[in-house]
């Protein structure tokens, strides 16, 4: 062994050094390369973001015919909470970016990029506001995580309502697309919030009127409930007059309940806004008709599809229960994005399931069907209204 090392030790030592350089040096250079690759990737991302930002800024500037310069700034923080469409709770939008728009050195507009929420978070919309006319002159959608098949129903024509939208409108209301009510509402929330921030920063006074809702309930009167779905107790006018009013399913003013001082047009407009945002009632289901002679009650429930579920119920002779089996017509499919994991049978299985739970024991607390949440919620609301209606007829309420 000693002779071997004497003869070949140096050779083996040099080979070992070479192998060591190859191995350790290889690891080292790989480490350096990887670090560099991360840096390059970050640089690329940074470049891409800069390009995207430049494109966005260019699109903002393009909205202002007289705009020559854009300057980014940090806007005021405004805390404001809005009700989401349906019963999905509240949402507080925020400003992501804000830009002053100049013509030369004269400021002519401002752009607020609002992070709103449609069906999902991350509905980021830039609202361009002309400060000379207090007008929203256009919007640019920066990002959205909405269901694209639904979001695509918001057409260019739909977006035109944001062009030259006067901020001194008493009550801002965006026309919702039936298939995309949540996304539509997200835009409305964004616009409302942009107006709030604009009001704080530019001293704009948001028009308002003196009307408040005391309470809201459902209208169970068969003579009126088809058109007047809700009854709201409100206080209005300079004298704080109390009055009950009928509201439609879309919260439009229908009329006064009984006698009282009617609401002004402005008050009606504001009432619609605050009623829809109040969350006091749900418009997921409603009464359509009731025939006293045949005791047939027709109700609707709005599930996932735009076409409502129609439930036809025949009350028994004593009007304290249901006779026979309700007839349900449903165009729900359960296989949309919302119901991707639904494993049950086709419509109206979910509707039947829930109504049968109620018929079995008369308890309005029914279990929803897994992965069919929206349809279940609509049917729960329908059962709640149905039970209250029967109670009203029997005088139990």
């Amino acid at each position, binding site marked *: 062994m000693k002779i071997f090392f004497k003869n070949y030790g140096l050779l083996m030592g040099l080979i070992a050094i070479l192998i060591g350089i190859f191995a350790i040096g290889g690891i080292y250079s790989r480490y*350096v390369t990887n670090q560099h690759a991360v*840096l390059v990737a970050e640089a690329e991302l940074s470049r891409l973001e800069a390009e995207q930002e430049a494109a966005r800024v260019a699109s903002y500037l393009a909205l202002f015919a007289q705009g020559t310069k854009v300057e980014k700034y940090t806007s005021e923080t405004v805390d404001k909470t809005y009700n989401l469409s349906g019963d999905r709770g509240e949402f507080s939008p925020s400003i992501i970016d804000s830009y002053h728009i100049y013509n030369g050195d004269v400021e002519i507009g401002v752009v607020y990029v609002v992070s709103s929420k449609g069906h999902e978070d991350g509905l980021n919309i830039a609202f361009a506001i002309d400060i000379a006319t207090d007008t929203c002159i256009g919007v640019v959608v920066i990002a959205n995580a909405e269901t694209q098949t639904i979001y695509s129903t918001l057409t260019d024509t739909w977006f035109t309502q944001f062009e030259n939208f006067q901020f001194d409108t008493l009550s801002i209301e965006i026309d919702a697309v039936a298939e995309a009510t949540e996304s539509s509402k997200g835009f409305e929330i964004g616009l409302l919030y942009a107006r709030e921030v604009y009001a704080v920063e530019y001293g704009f006074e948001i028009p308002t009127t003196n009307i408040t809702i005391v309470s809201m309930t459902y209208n169970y009167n068969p003579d009126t409930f088809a058109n007047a779905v809700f009854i709201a107790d409100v206080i209005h006018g300079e004298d704080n007059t109390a009055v009950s009013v009928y509201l439609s399913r879309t919260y439009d003013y229908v009329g006064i309940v009984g006698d009282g001082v009617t609401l002004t047009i402005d008050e009606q407009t504001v009432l619609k806004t605050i009623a829809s945002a109040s969350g006091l009632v749900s418009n997921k289901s409603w009464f359509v008709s009731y025939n006293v002679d045949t005791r047939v009650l027709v109700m609707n429930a709005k599930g996932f599809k735009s076409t409502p579920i129609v439930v036809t119920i025949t009350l028994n002779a004593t009007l304290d229960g249901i006779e026979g089996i309700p007839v349900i017509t449903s165009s729900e499919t359960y296989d949309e994005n919302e119901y991707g994991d639904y494993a049950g049978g086709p419509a109206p299985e979910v509707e039947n399931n829930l109504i049968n739970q109620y018929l079995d024991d008369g308890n309005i607390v029914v279990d929803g069907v897994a992965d069919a949440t929206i349809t279940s919620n609509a049917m729960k609301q329908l059962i709640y209204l149905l039970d209250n209606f029967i109670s009203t007829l029997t005088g139990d309420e």
Partner: protein
Amino acid sequence: MARFANGKAPFLRKTDDLTYGTQVIMRDFLIGLIPLILFAWYKNGIKVYVEGNATLLEMFYPIIFIMLGGLISMVIEGLFFIITDKEVRTLKVMMKKLQLSYAMIPGILLAMILPLYTPIWVLIFGCIMATFVTKLLFGGFGYNIFNPALIGYVAIAFTLMGVINKAGGVLNGSEVLIDAIAGATPLSTLSTTNLLSYQTLVAPYGSLWNFFIGTIPGALAETSALACIISFVWLSARKVIKWFVPVIYIGTVFGLSWLIGIFNGQAGIWFPTFSILSGGLMFGAVFMATEPVTTPKNPLGKIVFALFLGVFTVLFRFIGQYPEGVATSIIFMNIFTMPIDKWTSVIRTQGVTKKTIIKIIILAILIIAIATYALIKANSIYSASIGLPLYIGGWN
């Protein structure tokens, strides 16, 4: 008072002593490399680390890479000695032989002219080509025909440059973040755009001052003209190199580049300045074109050699497929070292005679012809402004 050596001929000069003269020359040569090595470490390691674009380990990579180049060459040469020389069986004997062979120099030079993000295994391959193939197979130190480091470099450039580019290429951690540079060295920008424009060739990298200092993208240790000049002054003062070789070489490139600029509508002095401050010209002129083994020995031969290097560098750089022309021209001229030495020795010793005048004319014609061809050819490749079809989209 003059000093005279007394005694019988032949006399042995101090520099003819293998254990003294060459050792001193090589020691001075290594000292001459220090400014470039330090600048390479500063530019690609320390500065990038200070700017927050590299980790501590990355900061040391340039200096370790260069040192590894020397070590790998020594190991390869050591292995060669052990295998081929039975007397080399102890570390002491081997180290003595390595010392006399200046084994580390090809590896160090090779590492200095490679891009920063060259993987170590590629460096090992280059060192094998430089030390084993180019130096040892030709007989070892003093017998090689070609410059070992340049052969190693060219072997890598022709086979593994894709690997290097994939591993990160030439741009260090700070340069990669500069949008204007966009992954290109000044010469590769010239090669891809064929545009003699200050805005295209110089402005993205700052100014010509940056070229002079060396804070531009390029190989690990060849970007700084300032460091090269410091080394040039040191090596010339120590008589390690002949001062006129780099001057003639760089001067020829400067002059021809100026003419190319003028013929292509760019008369500014910036273009020839850009030309000599870009790529590895300065480095090659100081450290490669003056290499004592592979270049002519007599002064006239060195002058002719440098002139040919100048015209070939311009030819390869401006006409060839690759942006750089220094390595190729030096290797190409290495082939003619012996005939140049022979011809010029005759001219030098015999003066201008009937016999030598033909040699002088042939050499002059060759240089002028190659330079003229380069100028004519470049005229059809480069322009000082963007062409109309390029400017107006949709014409093509």
